[in-house]
């Protein structure tokens, strides 16, 4: 059952997918459904003995291309809608214990190609308004399968957080003679320098001035490219380079493979014009505030939407930058 219900108090859709209760939960490594299918072994999601990068439709999708009209009609105040969309799983490698941070720059570069391809293909579907590419990493985030993978949700609406960001960028553009909010933020970060973490030729990683998590980092395209599909070959290569450096720094930060949520914000695919408003970037939200303490989204964050952070971005950026430099990626 895939169903959307409208929350008129917040002006946003909530997706219901009750079949997800049955999804695979922390299987032992030998029964990982994301590993290749070995001769004589149990059949996994991938019917081959090895693979490079694989994408498949999620077995337990939050949204489905053929989602029927909901049984529950709702009301004029609280309408319902089919949970129509696409949920994909992206397998980064056929090696069960690999992590994005440990992968070669070339493999990350290949992954960028796959992400761009999925953005274009899913975004071309007439019922898809937003292609949301993300990765949940680590048990602290609630990941149920440890094999290196990310996900893509192709939503039939622009989800609240990107929508709010686009509205802010649109308002800024109107009030500032067509200037891009993200380009100006990036200029300020470059000028200030204290929160920079890794700088490539075409991408910059930094802890934003207004970070919501202690070690939150944003990776911004230097050029105002609306989506990952708009990046030129050299920009894609540099994105892989900067991601690799940031991820190695994350793993060096506390001496273990750091859990995080990685999300991409870019232009919606709803047919509207987003030039100069959408600016492709990736945001990382690691939950750790120290090696053994997590930042929980508690009363203020969840109930009021107001984040309380107990470390200044200038301090955490310095620590993270030292970790990136110490990690020694080229």
């Amino acid at each position: 059952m895939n169903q959307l219900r409208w929350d008129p108090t917040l002006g946003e859709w909530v997706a219901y997918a009750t079949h997800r209760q049955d999804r695979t939960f922390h299987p032992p490594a030998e029964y990982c459904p994301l590993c290749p299918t070995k001769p004589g072994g149990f059949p996994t999601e991938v019917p081959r003995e090895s693979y490079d990068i694989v994408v498949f439709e999620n077995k337990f999708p939050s949204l489905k291309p053929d989602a029927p009209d909901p049984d529950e009609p709702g009301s004029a105040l609280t309408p319902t809608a089919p949970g129509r969309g696409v949920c994909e799983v992206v397998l980064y490698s056929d090696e069960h214990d690999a992590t994005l941070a440990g992968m070669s720059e070339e493999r990350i570069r290949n992954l960028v190609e796959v992400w761009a391809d999925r953005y274009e293909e899913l975004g071309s579907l007439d019922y898809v308004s937003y292609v949301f590419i993300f990765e949940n990493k680590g048990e602290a985030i609630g990941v149920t399968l440890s094999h290196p993978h990310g996900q893509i949700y192709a939503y039939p609406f622009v989800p609240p957080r990107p929508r709010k960001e686009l509205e802010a960028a649109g308002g800024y553009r109107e009030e500032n003679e067509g200037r891009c909010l993200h380009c100006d933020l990036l200029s300020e970060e470059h000028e200030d320098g204290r929160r920079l973490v890794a700088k490539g030729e075409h991408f910059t990683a930094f802890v934003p001035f207004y970070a919501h998590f202690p070690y939150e980092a944003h990776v911004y395209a230097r050029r105002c490219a609306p989506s990952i599909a708009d990046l030129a070959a050299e920009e894609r290569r540099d994105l892989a380079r900067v991601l690799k450096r940031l991820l190695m720094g994350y793993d060096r930060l506390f001496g273990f493979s750091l859990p995080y949520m990685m999300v991409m914000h870019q232009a919606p695919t709803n047919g509207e014009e987003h030039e100069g408003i959408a600016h492709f970037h990736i945001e990382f939200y690691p939950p750790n505030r120290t090696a053994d303490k997590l930042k929980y989204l508690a009363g203020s964050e969840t109930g009021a939407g107001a984040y309380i952070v107990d470390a200044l971005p200038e301090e955490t950026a310095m620590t993270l930058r030292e970790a990136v430099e110490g990690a020694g990626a080229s």
Partner: protein
Amino acid sequence: MILVEKEREQKDDGRYIIFYTFEDEEDEGSREDSTS
């Protein structure tokens, strides 16, 4: 690196699966710039 193959197959339960295969790119400069 260049994409050499994108194979789309259907699984037994009807879901699709896409295999992306890459190989070393000898002449990286020859790749078309997507913004040009």
